[in-house]
């Protein structure tokens, strides 16, 4: 990479402007609060705040969104450790050892380790983003219609197979997103598909309102179910002791942090695999490599450091395919894509050439956000956990109002509010019956990409589609990846069943 002094100077001036720094700080603190509230995930926070960034300078807006992303993932661990309730799914693994430490009276130490691990994981992923994204974006120049078609299919298969629960339902959720993506005027023929005579539908389903509905409104409805049940008193152990680990402790977890960070970055790059998967991979690998794996689950510092470094490392990793190819690496980045498009930024090589100033400033801002998150965390984690005391009776109506305001504000269009509510209902029923809403969003983005790619490939191939695909090296790699993505979960579940049977046979 050629380092251009002019570019660095512009980046620094943009980054250290008042608006950007304010947005960065607000995003970091806001993200921590959103993340620590059980039920509010990073995806939801970003979806709700995209409309706010709409009127902002692109640099400030996108820096804020990426700061929210990483700090919400971190914030989720605050409540996981201190009140045994993961604030976001990405922190479920942290709760295992983190809460045990809190019970022992080492809550503050667990917080310190979480903060440092998250900061390092997030920072390293930002570095990876800075160095991997520009060269990878060159690949996008080699991408033509068939490659875009295949990578869209790859993204769809991998998200279907990686979502927890039934593979069939995961893939079905993706197809639902594809069907929704059909709505609107077909670009090539100009025919309005599935609009049922409604003019606002001709431009297709608006992405951001649909996402707000799927993730936010449906979540409020899920939480309403708890109404009337006796509230579990969230007991918080007394916090005492030092926050910072000793040098010896830090040295003992350093390798774990680095390993988890690298794993997290890779999981992040995979389309569709987000922080929840990243943290479990980090935790399991740390346990496997550990000299004393039996200590995991009893409150050991490695068990806290491993998932934490991994889930924050996922954030930067997930931004790599997003910025270079427009393929979201996690459900949060799928939502972030909406934020990019609103600012008129289309992922691909142009982000690193024409829009280099904006892109690099946002990447450096993301790096700074991770450091800021660490500092804020060390200073304020004790106080932030207090926000988890806000009752759902107050939080529920606020989220609904913000969902309505956000969907409306994007186009000043009341129809988008109806779209949001419709998707809220769809999202709720999907979640109740074992379908996950994340593949829907991903498919909404990838569907049109797949369709246009396929149609153009037909034209380019002059009839021999298969031969055309097989004559392109990148296509062959992608086809192999797709086959692996479909086959691996089936093989894994077979192996799992076999293992279970063996265990049962022994018992």
């Amino acid at each position, binding site marked *: 990479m050629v380092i251009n002094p002019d570019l660095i100077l512009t980046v620094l001036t943009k980054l250290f402007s008042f608006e950007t720094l304010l947005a960065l700080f607000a995003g970091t603190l806001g993200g921590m609060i959103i993340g620590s509230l059980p039920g509010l995930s990073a995806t939801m926070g970003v979806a709700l705040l995209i409309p706010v960034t709409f*009127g902002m300078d692109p640099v400030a807006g996108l820096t804020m969104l990426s700061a929210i992303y990483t700090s919400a993932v971190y914030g989720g661990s605050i409540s996981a450790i201190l009140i045994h309730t993961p604030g976001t799914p990405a922190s479920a693994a942290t709760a295992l050892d983190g809460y045990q430490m809190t019970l022992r009276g080492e809550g503050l130490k667990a917080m310190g380790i979480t903060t440092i691990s998250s900061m390092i994981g997030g920072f390293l992923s930002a570095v990876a983003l800075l160095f991997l994204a520009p060269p990878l974006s060159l690949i996008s120049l080699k991408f033509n219609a068939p490659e875009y078609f295949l990578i869209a299919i790859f993204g769809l298969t991998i998200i279907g197979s990686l979502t927890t629960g039934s593979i*069939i339902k995961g*893939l079905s959720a993706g197809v639902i997103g594809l*069907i929704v993506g059909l709505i609107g005027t077909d670009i*090539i023929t100009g025919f309005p598909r599935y609009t049922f005579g409604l003019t606002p539908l001709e431009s297709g389903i608006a992405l951001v309102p649909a996402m707000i509905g799927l993730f936010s409104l449906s979540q409020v409805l899920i939480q309403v179910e708890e109404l009337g049940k006796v509230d579990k008193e969230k007991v918080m152990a007394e916090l005492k002791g030092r926050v910072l680990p000793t040098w010896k402790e830090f040295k003992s977890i350093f390798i774990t942090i680095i390993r988890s960070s690298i794993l997290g970055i890779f999981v992040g790059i995979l389309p569709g695999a987000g922080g929840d998967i990243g943290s479990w991979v980090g935790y399991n690998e740390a346990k496997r490599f550990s000299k004393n794996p039996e200590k995991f689950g009893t409150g050991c510092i490695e068990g806290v450091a491993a998932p934490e470094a991994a889930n924050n490392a996922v954030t930067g990793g997930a931004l790599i395919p997003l910025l270079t190819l427009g393929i979201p690496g996690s459900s949060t980045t799928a939502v972030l894509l909406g934020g990019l498009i609103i600012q008129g930024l289309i992922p691909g090589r142009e982000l690193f050439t024409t829009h280099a100033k904006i892109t690099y400033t946002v990447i450096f801002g993301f790096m700074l956000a991770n450091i800021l998150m660490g500092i804020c965390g060390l200073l304020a984690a004790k106080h932030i956990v207090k926000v988890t005391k806000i009752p759902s009776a107050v939080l529920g109506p606020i989220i609904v109002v913000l969902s*309505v305001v956000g969907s409306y504000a994007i186009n000043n269009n009341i129809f988008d509010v109806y779209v949001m*509510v419709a998707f*809220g209902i769809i999202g709720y029923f999907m979640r109740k019956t074992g379908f996950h809403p994340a593949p829907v969003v991903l498919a909404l983005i990838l569907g049109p990409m797949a369709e246009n790619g396929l*149609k153009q490939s037909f034209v380019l191939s002059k009839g021999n589609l298969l031969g055309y695909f097989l004559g392109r090296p990148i296509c062959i790699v992608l086809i192999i990846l797709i086959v692996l993505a479909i086959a691996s979960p089936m093989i894994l579940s077979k192996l799992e069943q076999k293992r279970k049977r063996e265990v049962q046979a022994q018992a």
Partner: protein
Amino acid sequence: MKRIIHHDVYIGIFMLLISLFLYSMTGDMPEGSAFFPKIILTIFAFFGVLVFIQGVRKSKVYNSENAKKMEEEIFSFLKIKTPMAALLIVLVYVALLKILGFFSATSLFIIAFMYFYQVRSIKKIILTLIGVNVFVYLLFVLQLNVAFPKGLLF
């Protein structure tokens, strides 16, 4: 004992019906536009059949003595009365937006939703109400120049 039918049976049938209905609509489309929907809907129908088969299998397990081993909860509309009531409040709120205007509808909604959530402290409700309205006004109206529907009131 009443025979239990797992919800996947109904979902599978529903998925099939949806794909048939949408597929029938591709008849009116020009060939270029109909091609991709046809592929997707065929796949969706296929998954519908798979979900249906899964549902039948799960139903069998529920009706056998292994029923206790199943972890998945059976979905039923009776169990989700409360969320449906909440949804109704949201639907009324959204319908009122254009009629009453954004800020009046929002205030009414917050009162109704918090009352529904069994909040009886007037102080809490009023504080939330003022807080949300002021926040939205400062950020969206003053900062981002969003023109909310005005309606009859404001």
